[in-house]
């Protein structure tokens, strides 16, 4: 509203009461209080994490798989080492689902002589479900026949191997979840070790700087320049197979990224006034590192560690594939996958379940760490 003072003011403005024009700012003016509630860094991160549906779903998937890995091997009624050559390569059979034709323990046998079907020694009563195809080859009547593999192997009707069995007749569900347990243990321990080494190494580089830093950084760079796979394989050959060897092998170069991150953070924060102030007050080095500098790195550190977990699961499987996995008969996702791969075309289910599980686990970890990274990203504070 523009008003020409000289031409007279509109009534409602002219008639404002005198009292409205009292001076009110007699005290010193203070900075205005924020009208929005202040939110702490981690609360803000948590808030944004909760906003991300994908992160929440991923979190629950990871948690469920962990719980399954803890429970399932104990309640299947089988152990992961229990062999029974009579039960070799049985297909999946799941109560409930078997009645609708999925996972009913059946298998199609091809190229069988038709006459042989009546031989009850080879095909016990009730083992033949249906004849899929009849044809003639070199004058002999041949069939493809769908059989109940459980009945064929002479196993009682109430035995269920949900995910089937492997070439030694071991229950695959028990082995799979036991394997998940072992893979996760390897992943968690290698990542935790890497974080610890990385934090210590990076802190020393970053805090002391100068020659120490130069030497240590060059050493890390040289190590990092070597192909990761080569180094890991070399050390696995040296250490021999086994869970501890894998964890150690994954730690040889795994910590370098963390160390680099921590070092960079140190360079960012050690020159800040509050750190200098603490130092002049005589705060000891260790306390300075842990109380004043490291807390700034927690966000990126958590994100890094979360992203490293699926990487470690992958590396474990990879080593299993090239014959450097953990010692048999212990299972791991990688061992099961590579065992299954060798009979992929005959018994695809032996690959299917570990493949689904490793994929779901890796996807969930990746999505969750993406969400975590976005949530902990200080530049995104306050975003929706």
């Amino acid at each position, binding site marked *: 509203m523009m008003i020409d003072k000289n031409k007279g003011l509109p009534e409602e403005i002219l008639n404002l009461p005198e009292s409205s024009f009292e001076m009110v700012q007699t005290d010193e003016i203070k900075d205005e209080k924020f009208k929005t509630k202040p939110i702490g860094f981690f609360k803000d991160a948590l808030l944004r994490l909760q906003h991300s549906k994908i992160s929440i779903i991923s979190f629950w998937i990871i948690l469920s798989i962990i719980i399954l890995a803890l429970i399932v091997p104990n309640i299947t009624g089988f152990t992961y080492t229990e062999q029974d050559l009579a039960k070799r390569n049985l297909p999946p059979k799941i109560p409930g689902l078997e009645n609708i034709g999925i996972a009913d323990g059946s298998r199609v046998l091809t190229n069988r002589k038709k006459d042989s079907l009546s031989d009850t020694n080879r095909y016990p009563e009730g083992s033949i479900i249906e004849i899929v195809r009849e044809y003639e080859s070199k004058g002999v009547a041949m069939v493809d026949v769908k059989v109940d593999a459980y009945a064929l192997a002479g196993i009682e009707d109430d035995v269920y191997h949900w995910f089937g069995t492997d070439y030694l007749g071991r229950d695959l569900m028990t082995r799979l979840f036991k394997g998940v347990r072992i893979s996760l243990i390897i992943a968690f321990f290698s990542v935790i070790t890497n974080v610890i080494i990385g934090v210590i190494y990076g802190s020393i580089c970053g805090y002391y700087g100068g020659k120490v830093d130069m030497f240590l950084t060059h050493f890390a760079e040289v190590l990092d*320049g070597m192909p990761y796979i080569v180094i890991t394989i070399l050390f696995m050959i040296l250490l021999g197979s086994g869970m501890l060897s894998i964890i150690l092998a994954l730690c040889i170069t795994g910590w370098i990224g963390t160390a680099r991150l921590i070092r960079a953070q140190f360079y960012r924060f050690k020159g800040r006034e509050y750190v200098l102030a603490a130092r002049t007050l005589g705060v000891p080095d260790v306390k300075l590192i842990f109380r004043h500098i490291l807390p700034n790195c927690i966000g990126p550190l958590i994100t890094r560690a979360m992203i490293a977990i699926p990487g470690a699961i992958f590396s474990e499987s990879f080593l299993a*594939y090239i014959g450097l996995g953990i010692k048999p008969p212990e299972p791991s996702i990688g061992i099961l996958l590579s065992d299954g791969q060798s009979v992929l*075309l005959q018994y695809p289910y032996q690959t299917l379940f570990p493949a689904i599980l490793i994929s779901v686990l*890796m996807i969930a970890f990746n999505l969750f760490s993406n969400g975590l990274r976005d949530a902990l990203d200080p530049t995104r504070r306050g975003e929706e």
Partner: protein
Amino acid sequence: MVKYILKRIGAMLLTLFLIMTLSFWIIRLMPMSIFENPATPPDIQKLLMAEMHLDKPLFVQYLYFIKGVVTEAEFGTSVQIRPGMDVFEILASRIPPTVLLNIMSLLISIPLGIVFGTIAALKRNKATDNIISFLIVICISVPSFVFASVLQYVFTFKIPIFPTLYDTQAATFAGTMHSLLLPIIALALGPMATIARYLRGELIETLSSEYLLLARTKGLTRTQATVRHAFRNSLVPIANTIIPLITGIMGGSLVIEKMFAVPGMGGLLIDSIMAGDHFLTVSLLIFYSTISLITILIVDISYGIIDPRIRVGGGK
């Protein structure tokens, strides 16, 4: 620029030297040495003794080893897989299939990754972006050997349009490629997704950069500004992701070669590890390192050529 290249080559040679050193000491210090292994045929054991100068002190043996590798490409002798055969001879025939597989995967993944990443960035937060981003996460998360299993089962068994195994007898290059296509795809999916994700991020950042705003305020259309400034600038840092991708592809190909019976270094490496033929393993690893380090060197140098800040020097 010359200084930059020399520095890179120096670093590469140093790394190679360290790998050789490490390899030697690991083999010699293994608890169950191949030289005492009763399974090793006595004639080969003798050959090895002579070749490795086992009568000399350890350090001298080491010098002989390094000298052999550097001057004569003399890596040692196979003990288990092809007893008595010179390792380098075994290796030579195994290199071409591996290189073909790796290079084809890289050549497929880079352009496709760029296309998908660009589409996703330009359609940011729309349905197209969400679908691409979802597929990216799947391709990044699922290991290449799982893809390989799925592809092998579906396209060679259920719908048999590809041979299950590598065709060593293929008469034409097209025939070889036909049998190599599934392993190439299995290897390319992950790197493709990585490039797409990285480019999407870079492009979104450059799209909101000041210089893009300047490009628009000086009168360029949105498309012109995007192509000439955002896209071009986002491609430069992609080189950074390509290096880890190369190592990733080479690692993945170790397993994939075995699965598809590609007669490359990967299958041989696995066989040699399983058989405990450590000479062969180590020579393979050294060779493998050389190939991967050379590839990285090439990428590094071309990165220097693309980015004026490195080429001209002085800038950050």
